[in-house]
């Protein structure tokens, strides 16, 4: 379990996260929606201890960051490293000695090629495969469905389902609401650094309608099509 209390984050005078409180439990998949700049990625970075923050993040783990698999929106790669070597690096970093990745290569990536030759979707799949091989307990997936082909999107959905069954904690952000409503147990709406209590499956439809209304209302008319 992860418990977040009074979490705030400022960049100078700009408050990006405002006093957030949240409990994340094992075996649950949590979705986070919000406009660009609403604070989703900052929240993820705080949980992963990639940045400093005010407030408290407690967990069942001694050092939470060592149990987190972080999939960034645009995963970073080192130059002149092959896919296989990238996976090896991620495993070694967590003291996992595996190095036969052929069986786990479910996305059929060309692991002997340099990562810089991969397409955007292939890079994302490689980064996802890396954090899965690390055998993490918590998964933070920032836009996991972005830039990935439809077949892989289906596969990613099944992976998330399997992680839920294995009692992992999964956090997902996405700009495509349907990907969240299909995969999440609870969805939180972030708005200018604040967050609501979150809605469960039975309220997803209402949340989507409210979001649509808020985003679209009046704007299309302004285009004077």
């Amino acid at each position, binding site marked *: 379990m992860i418990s977040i209390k009074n979490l705030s984050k400022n960049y100078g005078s700009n408050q990006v996260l405002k006093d957030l409180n949240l409990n994340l439990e094992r075996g649950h998949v949590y979705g986070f929606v919000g406009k660009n700049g609403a604070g989703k990625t900052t929240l993820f970075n705080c949980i992963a201890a990639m940045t400093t923050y005010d407030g408290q993040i407690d967990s069942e783990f001694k050092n939470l960051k060592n149990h987190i698999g972080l999939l960034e929106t645009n995963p*970073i790669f080192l130059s002149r490293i092959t896919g296989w070597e990238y996976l090896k690096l991620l495993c070694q970093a967590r003291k996992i000695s595996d190095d036969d990745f052929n069986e786990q290569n479910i996305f059929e990536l060309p692991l002997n090629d340099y990562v810089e030759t991969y397409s955007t979707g292939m890079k994302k799949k490689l980064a996802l495969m890396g954090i899965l091989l690390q055998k993490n307990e918590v998964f933070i997936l920032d836009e996991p469905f972005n830039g990935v082909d439809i077949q892989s999107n289906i596969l990613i959905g099944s992976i998330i389902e399997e992680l839920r069954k294995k009692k992992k904690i999964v956090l997902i952000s996405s700009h495509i609401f349907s990907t969240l409503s299909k995969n999440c147990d609870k969805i939180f709406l972030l708005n200018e650094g604040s967050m609501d209590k979150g809605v469960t499956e039975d309220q997803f439809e209402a949340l989507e309608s409210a979001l649509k209304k808020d985003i679209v209302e009046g704007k299309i008319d302004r285009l004077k099509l």
Partner: protein
Amino acid sequence: MEYYFSLQFIRLKRWFKEIGISPILGIAISIFVFIFISKLLFIKTELAKWIYPFITLSILVNISNSQYKRLLKIIYHKEKLRIIRMVENGIVALPFLLYLLYEKEYLIALILWIAVFFVALISLNINSTKTIPSPFSKRPFENIIGFRKSFILIGLLYFILFKAIQVDNYNLGMFSFGAIYLVCMSFYLKPEQKYFVWIFNDNINGFLKRKIIDAFICSSILMIPALIGLVIFDHKNFFLPIGVSLIGLIFLVSMIFAKYASYPNEMNVPQGILFALSIWFPPMLLIVIPLYYKRCKQNLASILE
């Protein structure tokens, strides 16, 4: 084309500002340090006149393969690109050429001048997508990247070493040996993105220990054939390459500490000067290593613990 060079100058000025000194002072310090090191090098070894063209051409080959050259290819016409590369190579090589002329090494300066423009005309396709095999696949990080970026240079240094053994020139052999060590150290110059430190589930000491072990293993793989060659070549002086190897390993440790002492930024000027001084006067490492280590702990604490 003029805009390209003015942009490069702006980038240089910004780089000086990033490392914490004013551009004018930075340029003045660079000129002073260059003259100081050159003087020292030419006093200390007769090989300096050969080391200079070697350094110049290494820099040029390196920049001709950088990523932004790809961008230039997209922006500029072939002819214009050639002129840009010639002017750029000329600017980079100028200090070395001027110093060679000052030392009255006219022939070497002329050969270098021709080589500088020749490098601008040829297109080295080192950034090919073909995977370059590396002996460090099991330890994929700085060494594997560094090796793939410098394999031509390493090959060249091994060739010089082989030739030195063939023509009975022990000093030249030792120079190549030391230069391979410097190449290994250069793998640790650039700081990696924070993510690649964050992923490690070690404490600071464990993380640094891993880095040092990796560096020892990988540099040994590169150095041992050269070491064996030199020991067999002049077994009476066997202690010299072994001694250089041991000092090299200590420098490698200090290089790793220096990298993380400035992390996540690149090594700044005072740290660079301190490191250069310790190469010139190795006992300084006794002060430098603990100092860097203390800074490493401060910088890595927020990421790893």
